[in-house]
């Protein structure tokens, strides 16, 4: 393995670490705000299940990522351009406050780099079609499942008077829903990095085109996302403390369980989806059981803009970045 390959793998793992770092809030916010776990316990809980996801899920998402372009398209230069495009867009949108998805940025970056190096014919449109359709389906699934979950709970317990006892039950349930969400997050997001590393290994002839993802790649990707969650969670504990929005345990459990089911389904189907958008859809679903005006539609419309802008934005960035890198191939 050359130094260049090791460096690219390092950048891919850094992308994975950053993903865990800034998505840690999604995994621990509800368990902390409902005081089911202390912040320290919540961080450790989420990090462990993000790491342990490799036991439960296969590597279908990683294979989808490595097949977004036709065999032989990617070189070291184009993979670097794709990663710079994705990370660059993430940073720009983080600065402008647009809630974009790093997964969509990665997919857009890979497309931009592939088109810049080989042309439009290099893209595997069937894989892109699947990814683009699920940009809409995943949050909608989170929304509908969370809404249905909440409606069933409200209907089943509307005459139940022992609210404290009920809340205690849902608090315990949240331990499992938070774990399930962390598993779903680790399963889907770590595999995107595995896909990039697999692409690098294929491009350099280290593994063959149809080879399975090597075990060390699976392990290192899950380790990176687990560590990112651990350190990102610590930062959240220090900066946010108890300022996290007050949530009811039942709402937290409903949104996490629904998002976990949606992510699990997408992961088993080999579809890379945005974990942030999926949990956002589920939270909107919980809010809608009160009334539609309870939902912050300003935030929802920003998510929709993010859907529209992320892939083209990362595409353009990766395309532009590839031009000066072309000679490095």
């Amino acid at each position: 393995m050359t130094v260049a390959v090791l460096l690219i793998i390092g950048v891919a793992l850094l992308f994975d670490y950053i993903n865990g770092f800034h998505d840690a809030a999604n995994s621990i916010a509800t368990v902390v705000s409902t005081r089911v776990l202390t912040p320290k316990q919540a961080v450790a809980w989420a990090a462990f299940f993000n790491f342990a996801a490799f036991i439960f899920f296969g590597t279908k998402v990683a294979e989808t990522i490595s097949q977004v372009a036709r065999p032989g398209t990617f070189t070291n230069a184009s993979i670097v351009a794709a990663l710079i495009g994705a990370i660059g867009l993430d940073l720009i949108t983080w600065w402008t406050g647009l809630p974009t998805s790093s997964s969509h940025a990665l997919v857009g970056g890979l497309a931009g780099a592939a088109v810049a190096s080989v042309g439009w014919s290099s893209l595997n449109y069937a894989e892109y079609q699947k990814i683009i359709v699920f940009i809409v389906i995943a949050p909608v699934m989170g929304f509908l499942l969370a809404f249905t979950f909440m409606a069933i709970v409200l209907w089943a317990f509307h005459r139940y008077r022992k609210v404290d006892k009920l809340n205690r039950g849902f608090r315990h349930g949240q331990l499992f829903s938070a774990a399930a969400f962390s598993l779903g997050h680790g399963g889907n997001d770590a595999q995107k990095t595995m896909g990039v590393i697999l692409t690098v290994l294929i491009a350099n002839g280290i593994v063959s085109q149809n080879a399975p993802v090597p075990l060390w790649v699976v392990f290192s990707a899950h380790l990176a996302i687990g560590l990112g969650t651990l350190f990102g969670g610590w930062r959240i504990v220090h900066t946010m403390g108890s300022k996290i929005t007050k949530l009811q345990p039942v709402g937290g459990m409903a949104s996490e369980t629904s998002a976990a089911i949606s992510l699990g389904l997408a992961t088993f189907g080999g579809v890379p989806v945005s974990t942030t958008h999926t949990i956002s859809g589920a939270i909107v679903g919980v809010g809608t059981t009160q009334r539609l005006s309870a939902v912050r539609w300003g935030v929802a419309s920003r998510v929709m803009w993010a859907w529209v802008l992320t892939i083209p934005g990362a595409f353009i960035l990766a395309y532009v970045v590839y031009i000066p890198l072309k000679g490095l191939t």
Partner: protein
Amino acid sequence: MRALSRRTWFFLVIAVAMLLLYEPTPETFRWVNLALAGLALFWFVLFTIEDVGRARRVRHRVRGGSR
């Protein structure tokens, strides 16, 4: 039509969107579109019944009060 709340219309929009996405969705995943459209339609019908019933009750009350 005015009797229906924004929430009710919202579920119809979701159901239509899922059905519109049926064709571009790869065959293996099309059942997801149908399941989600079905779930959204279920809520649309339920909320329509609730909204229409509420509107009828209000109309009845207003008519009763004006006598």
